């Protein structure tokens, strides 16, 4: 069992595997997103409260979801890397950080744009989700800054793993404390909780978008993992042989 895992996680194997699998995630993802975009923009009925502005949900929700998933990946990867000393787990965490930050930024921007017609302002501190998302963005910045500050990759991996684990506990606390805080100030939220179930005609494109974004995220993550593996293994023989043979793909 362990030897199987170790062979699976061996850098040359991962390097090849990532290249093979990325398209298998990317293209279905693109199809789903194309479907979701089309149906979401043109077919789904207009929301009776928010009008067509609700259609922003189709990019905002997947982005917000991925922003949290990427952080989970960083924390879980860090935990696995620390406990079982699997370098690949650290590599995945390192690769997820910039992607997670990008999706967090997207969630913030779309949320803010959504807020403009709904609240009449670009930024509403009273919305707990936006505020938590902003704190999440800062957590990403901290993680990437720590990684950039430590020259030794192995050391950076472990330090960042500790930070991500501490951070993931904190994300939960942030969520609840911000919710409490906004309830004090009559905060308003974009997504109605526990309201009437969503019309399936609205829901299906949303699910397609979430799944599609996740697949694309997976493809991008694999590609970044591949680069990260190549960089970390730059002094090894297999990289040398691969590059001398002109293989390995640019």
């Amino acid at each position, binding site marked *: 069992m362990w030897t199987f895992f170790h062979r699976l996680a061996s850098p040359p194997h991962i390097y090849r595997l990532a290249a093979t699998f990325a398209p298998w995630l990317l293209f279905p993802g693109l199809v789903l997103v194309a479907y979701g975009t089309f149906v979401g923009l043109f077919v789904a009925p*207009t929301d009776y409260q928010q009008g*067509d502005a609700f*259609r*922003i949900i189709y*990019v905002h929700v997947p*982005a917000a979801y991925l922003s949290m998933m990427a952080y989970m990946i960083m924390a879980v990867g860090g935990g696995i890397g620390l406990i079982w000393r699997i370098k690949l787990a650290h590599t995945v965490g390192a690769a997820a950080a910039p992607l997670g930050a990008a999706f967090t930024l997207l969630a913030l921007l779309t949320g803010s744009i959504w807020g403009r017609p709904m609240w009449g302002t670009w930024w509403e501190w009273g919305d707990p989700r936006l505020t938590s998302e902003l704190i999440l963005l800062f957590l990403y910045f901290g993680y990437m800054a720590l990684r950039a500050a430590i020259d030794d990759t192995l050391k950076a991996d472990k330090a960042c793993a500790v930070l991500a684990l501490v951070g993931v506990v904190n994300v939960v606390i942030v969520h609840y404390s911000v919710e409490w805080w906004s309830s004090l100030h009559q905060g308003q939220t974009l997504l109605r909780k526990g309201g009437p179930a969503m019309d399936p005609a609205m829901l299906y494109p949303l699910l397609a978008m979430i799944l599609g974004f996740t697949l694309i995220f997976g493809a991008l993550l694999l*590609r970044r993992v591949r680069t990260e593996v*190549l960089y970390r293994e*730059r002094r090894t023989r297999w990289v040398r042989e691969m590059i*001398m043979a002109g293989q390995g793909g640019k």
Partner: protein
Amino acid sequence: MGNYGAYVWTCFALALAVLVYSDWSARVRHKRVYRDIEVRIKALEERE
């Protein structure tokens, strides 16, 4: 799209931009890493 067209389209455009940028930056970084290693290895070979 009612009065909200601009907002909705901007959001979708931003999403597209983020996806394209993520893809592009990943490609660029991979190319750079690959080339750096290639140059270094070639230099080593020549010295040997």
